[in-house]
């Protein structure tokens, strides 16, 4: 069955600390994954996609097919990174979302 798991509902760190938001997936096909972010009172927006292998706002995510993971990482968290983060798996023309992780970055 297709599934996306984000095991942490809440992750709290201090400014400047490293951040890793976990995402694991279950999919029999070739996976394509995204990270979406929702800042307070803003719409959900795409943060990054594994295909482009880009770094957005200092965040990176590497697809590990062996561990079926797509963890989101940032070496030094900033207060403005506080938001809700969703991992999403592409199945043909649809997305399956995880339950989300709320990141709180304290000053």
């Amino acid at each position, binding site marked *: 069955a297709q599934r996306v798991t*984000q095991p942490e*509902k809440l992750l709290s760190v201090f400014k400047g600390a490293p951040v890793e938001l976990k995402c694991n997936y279950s999919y029999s096909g070739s996976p*394509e994954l*995204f990270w979406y972010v929702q800042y307070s009172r*803003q*719409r*959900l*927006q*795409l943060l990054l*996609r594994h295909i482009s292998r880009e770094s957005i706002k200092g965040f990176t995510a590497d697809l590990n097919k062996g561990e079926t993971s797509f963890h989101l990482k940032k070496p030094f968290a900033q207060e403005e990174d506080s938001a809700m983060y*969703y991992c999403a798996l*592409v199945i043909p*023309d*649809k*997305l399956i*979302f*995880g*339950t*989300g992780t709320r990141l709180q970055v304290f000053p």
Partner: protein
Amino acid sequence: DVKVTQSSRYLVKRTGEKVFLECVQDMDHENMFWYRQDPGLGLRLIYFSYDVKMKEKGDIPEGYSVSREKKERFSLILESASTNQTSMYLCASSSRRDHSFGSGTRLTVV
């Protein structure tokens, strides 16, 4: 930049009312989606549409229906609203794989 507009930011409706949530996109996208967003449950797909007059059930279609008479507009209908449909509703559109989302409609059923 794709703009997805949801007609209402907040709605309060009574139990048993028929409720219409409207969504319009301006980028000629083929695919449109309705999700509900609940704490601890993430985004769950209610219905989606690949083309005008086409609709497909998502993971939680019970109690909902949709209408897509024009390519740019996708409506979500609650035939008889119930308190367990109190939620944030998100509309999205896409032409490839990633979605562009609306600002959401927070619906409260009392």
